[in-house]
């Protein structure tokens, strides 16, 4: 019995446009969430896939022992591609020359991600990665592919023989690009590739050999996750399942940061959309008061009324969700197409598909928004007194402020949590939103006092504006809150974006070292410096490298782990936790750049007692404090040094970094090799050939590709953020319009009265402009305040970046806020000042 009237009421309301704004607000929320999460997810996947080149796969399972074939083959059930390689260090021989090489014995379609390039002809004097062809899979049996250094150091050319263990191979190619090349200067033997089927012939696998079994997988993210879950119970502790994100590399770090930022921006967008829905739900309910009172008068029961309006809302919400999904889908496709168009090189060939997650998140956003935000307005609506049909100014009782706050806060929090799945982030975002609300009610109170404190004159546009704000004090404070939220979002995105990009740029400024030089003998330091000077290449300081193991801290011997990181029970019994492996140590007279001292002091050059400086994170992990004494074994010698400083180290910087730096008194006399880093422009690549020919024992690591990838990520994230900024700005304009729309009727009436009583157009225009200017300025000021607090919280607790105050932000936000709101507000109210006063008689009488 309720359905028919409900349907016809809905039809009428749709015709009259009563529900249009509510529908649009829900569609807006769903559009923002769907496009943001869809775009964010796909972009992230694209970044991961592209960055996975650095692993040569999406996931790598590595182990010191072979893993059961059944386990590996079960990946086929999950539609994964697989390949594997066995890796070991081994001496290789060519005639009388020999060299320690890192051997990869490959089986299957290696690499699964990224390109392996092999040149079948001798190299020419051009950048390496421009030479050779892309190859998938191992060399043919009996063949070996070698790194250019091997050719130079063993004086080989294509077609020559190379012995690995007991087997002899023919050099059939030179690797010019290896996707998963090592970036570690401390483990820098040149790499050779052989076919895995040749391994038995080499007789290298003996009991006690140090081998690594690496199983590579690629496929859909969900399949990879499902496969991992299925094998997880069978994996041992020393069998690692790695992805690019889990790597402790500058790339992984940047990816994680970019991810979090996209997430945060999307979260803020959701709050904005929710605000629009909340405002329109309240307005819808207010507009229905007469209808409900009339229905009650006509004898409609409460339950039927509830059904009628729940039906209306549910229908509108469904329509809004569908509209939002369509718009969101188109938007994220467009955004992704823009990335593909502007940066084709930074996307993988096969673009990642959209998963169900954005769909689920955005549908639940629409449902939660429609249900929760219309809950209190609807309950209020159902309570409308029947007497309203006679006394139209009778209002249903308002819900307590705290109850409204609780429902609103609860809804926002559940949205944030669903979306981010991060409790801390959701709580911080919610707290900031709460803070904004509190500050705004305070401002609204101040506004009331201000407007009532002065003598009123209708001839002053300022006083008309203030009176208008006063009249709408509760709505005005909400309006200010929404605009402040929008401005705050824009500011946070703008500032964080700049700071993130700045920080990333700082990390890899122009001229960042793109080569590491290792294994430099003391007598080579001078001539190499001269050679570098000849080519006008600036190097970092040369750092002496001495391998050593910390064996005791104070009186306690170190226990726990062996050099492979495996638990060593014998060691575990005694002593405390140590580094668990041999370290590369260095000594210096001066503090390295960008290694700020956190505690203690750097030593003076003439210090005769052995001292050591330790990196802060490892000091905290191993509970090492200033004044502690570290005993370090270097060869057969034992060095005892006191910890006199604790340093911060930026591990992402492209510089040699060390956990422990000793003073000259401690290690100055130890035999050592040196390492250095330098930036070499592409056109100076001949220097590399000269270096390696002259000093064949040098190790050279190129990090060009890594740096290029980092830059690409920065560019992509910047573009993504620009898109999110655009969406947020659009959403905030819509929120503002929704707010103005909500006050339109009252404004209309006021303006027509004023106009009828003889107020000039100019006066009214000025009053409207001033009202919005004040509104915007207050919103801007509040936004600046809350942005500062939010940035502090976000930077300190979420993305761990140093926080600094932004004095210019206050002025900027206030000015931008007032101009932005005044421009949109006056535009939206333009019709009002143009209405002929006769509207008054026609509409209001």
């Amino acid at each position, binding site marked *: 019995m309720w359905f028919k009237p409900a349907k016809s009421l809905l039809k009428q309301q749709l015709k009259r446009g009563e529900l249009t704004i509510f529908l649009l607000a829900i569609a807006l929320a769903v559009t923002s969430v769907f496009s943001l999460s869809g775009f964010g997810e796909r972009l992230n996947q694209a970044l991961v896939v592209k960055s996975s080149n650095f692993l040569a796969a999406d996931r790598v399972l590595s182990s010191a022992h072979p893993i059961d074939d059944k386990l590996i083959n079960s990946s086929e059930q999950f539609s994964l591609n697989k390949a594997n390689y066995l890796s070991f260090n081994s001496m290789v021989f060519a005639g009388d020359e020999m060299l320690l090489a890192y051997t990869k014995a490959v089986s299957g379609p290696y690499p699964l991600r990224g390109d392996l390039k092999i040149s079948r002809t001798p190299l020419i004097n051009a950048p390496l990665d421009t030479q050779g062809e892309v190859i998938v899979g191992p060399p043919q049996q009996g063949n070996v592919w070698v790194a250019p250094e091997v050719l130079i150091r063993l004086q080989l050319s294509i077609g020559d023989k190379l012995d690995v263990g007991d087997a002899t191979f023919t050099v059939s190619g030179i690797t010019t690009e290896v996707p998963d090349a090592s970036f570690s200067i401390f483990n820098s033997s040149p790499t050779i590739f052989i076919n895995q089927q040749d391994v038995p012939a080499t007789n290298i696998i003996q009991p006690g050999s140090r081998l690594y079994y690496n199983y590579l997988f690629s496929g859909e993210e969900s399949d990879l996750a499902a496969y991992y879950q299925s094998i997880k119970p069978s994996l041992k502790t020393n069998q690692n399942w790695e992805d690019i994100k889990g790597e402790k590399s500058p790339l992984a770090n940047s990816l994680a940061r970019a991810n979090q930022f996209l997430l945060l921006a999307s979260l803020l967008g959701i709050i904005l959309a929710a605000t629009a829905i909340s405002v329109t739900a309240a307005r819808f309910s207010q507009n229905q008061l007469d209808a409900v009172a009339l229905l009650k008068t006509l004898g409609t029961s409460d339950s039927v009324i509830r059904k009628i309006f729940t039906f209306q809302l549910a229908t509108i919400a469904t329509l809004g969700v569908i509209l939002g999904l369509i718009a969101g889908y188109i938007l994220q496709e467009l955004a992704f197409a823009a990335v593909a168009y502007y940066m084709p090189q930074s996307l993988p060939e096969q673009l990642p598909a959209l998963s169900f997650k954005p769909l689920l998140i955005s549908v639940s956003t629409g449902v939660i928004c429609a249900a929760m935000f219309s809950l209190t307005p609807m309950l209020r609506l159902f309570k409308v007194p029947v007497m309203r049909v006679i006394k139209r*100014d009778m209002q249903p009782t308002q819900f307590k402020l705290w109850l409204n706050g609780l429902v609103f806060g609860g809804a926002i929090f559940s949205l944030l949590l669903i979306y981010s799945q991060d409790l801390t982030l959701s709580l911080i975002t919610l707290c900031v939103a709460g803070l904004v609300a509190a500050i705004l009610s305070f401002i609204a109170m101040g506004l009331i006092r201000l407007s009532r404190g002065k003598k*009123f*004159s*209708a*001839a002053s546009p300022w006083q008309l504006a203030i*009176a*208008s704000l*006063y*009249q709408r004090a509760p709505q005005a404070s909400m309006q200010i809150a929404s605009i402040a939220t929008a401005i705050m979002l824009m500011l946070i995105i703008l500032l964080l974006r700049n700071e993130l990009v700045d920080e990333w740029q700082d990390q890899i400024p122009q001229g960042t070292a793109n080569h590491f030089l290792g294994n430099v003998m003391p007598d080579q330091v001078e001539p190499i410096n001269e050679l570098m000077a000849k080519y006008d290449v600036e190097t970092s300081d040369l750092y002496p490298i001495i391998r050593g193991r910390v064996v005791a801290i104070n009186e306690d011997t170190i226990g726990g782990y062996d050099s492979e990181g495996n638990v060593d029970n014998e060691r575990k019994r005694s002593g405390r936790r140590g580094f668990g492996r041999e370290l590369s140590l260095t000594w210096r007279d001066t503090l390295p750049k960008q290694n700020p001292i956190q505690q203690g002091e750097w030593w003076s050059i003439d210090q005769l007692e052995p001292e050591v400086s330790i990196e802060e994170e490892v000091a905290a992990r191993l509970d090492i404090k200033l004044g502690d004494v570290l005993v370090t074994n270097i060869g057969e010698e034992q060095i005892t040094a006191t910890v006199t400083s604790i340093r911060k180290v930026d591990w992402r910087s492209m510089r040699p970094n060390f956990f422990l730096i000793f003073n000259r008194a401690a290690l100055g006399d130890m035999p050592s090799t040196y390492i250095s880093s330098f930036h070499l422009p592409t056109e100076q690549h001949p220097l590399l050939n000269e270096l390696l020919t002259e000093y064949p024992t040098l190790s050279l690591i190129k990090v060009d590709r890594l740096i290029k990838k980092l830059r690409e990520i920065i560019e992509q994230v910047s573009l993504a953020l620009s898109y999110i900024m655009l969406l947020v700005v659009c959403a905030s304009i819509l929120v503002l319009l929704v707010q103005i729309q909500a006050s339109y009727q*009252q404004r209309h*009436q*006021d303006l027509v*009265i*004023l*106009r*009828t*009583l*003889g*107020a*000039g*157009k100019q*006066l009214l225009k000025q009053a409207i402009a001033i009202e919005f200017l004040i509104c915007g300025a207050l919103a801007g000021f509040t936004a600046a305040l809350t942005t500062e607090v939010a940035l502090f919280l976000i930077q300190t607790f979420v993305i761990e970046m140093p926080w600094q105050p932004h004095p210019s932000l206050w002025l900027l936000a206030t000015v931008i806020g007032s101009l932005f709101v005044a421009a949109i507000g006056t535009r939206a109210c333009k019709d009002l000042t143009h209405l*002929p*006063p*006769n509207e*008054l*008689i*026609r509409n*209001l*009488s």
Partner: protein
Amino acid sequence: MSEQVAEQKDIIIVKNLIKRVEVNNGQLEILKSISLNVKQGQSIAIVGASGSGKSTLLGLLAGLDSSTFGEIWLDNAPLHELDEEQRTHLRAEKVGFIFQSFLLLPALTALENVMLPAQLAGHKDAEQQALALLKKVGLDHRDDHYPNQLSGGEQQRVAIARAFICQPKILFADEPTGNLDGDNGHRIERLLFELNEQHHTTLVLVTHDPKLAANCQRIITMSDGTISEQQTTNSQEELTHVV
């Protein structure tokens, strides 16, 4: 010009007034060539069924809207030749309004609402005038109350005080007692005619209430966009034009 000026006592002169509006399928003529003269100090009621064009005529006479054709002279000013802004100035100077739904600004107190037209017209002593008028309508003790703190009758008294503050030559009232109960309605009625007499204002009243209309000197009945006139017992004047 000379013929209009000759009728010095006519404060409102309407000649062949036509108002057409655009509707879905063409034009609708709401007022069909109306002519009408109103003398200074006269009270005139416009009555008629809903949709007969009463409010449209009132809006045109008060300069709230512009006509499609014809002339309206308001205290010698050619309303039909003025643009909207000039009509606004004219209203501020010479016209007062009272509406059925009072239409007070909710943001302003009773006193501020009364002061409003005087301030817009640049009067220096707006506050004193407003207080005096509030006293006349018996609301001087509630000058700092907001409209939502006043009853319907009280709100209409404030509106009447507001209407008289600029000492308008012409007062337009649209169903002034329409939203009020009998007692309050009579009170407002009395007040309206009393002040009208005191200020020697011309009163143009749109109403459904025959008793209220009967208090006016002239009654114009509107029907389908045309007017006809009947003389009331209060009439001291001769019938002028009937079209």
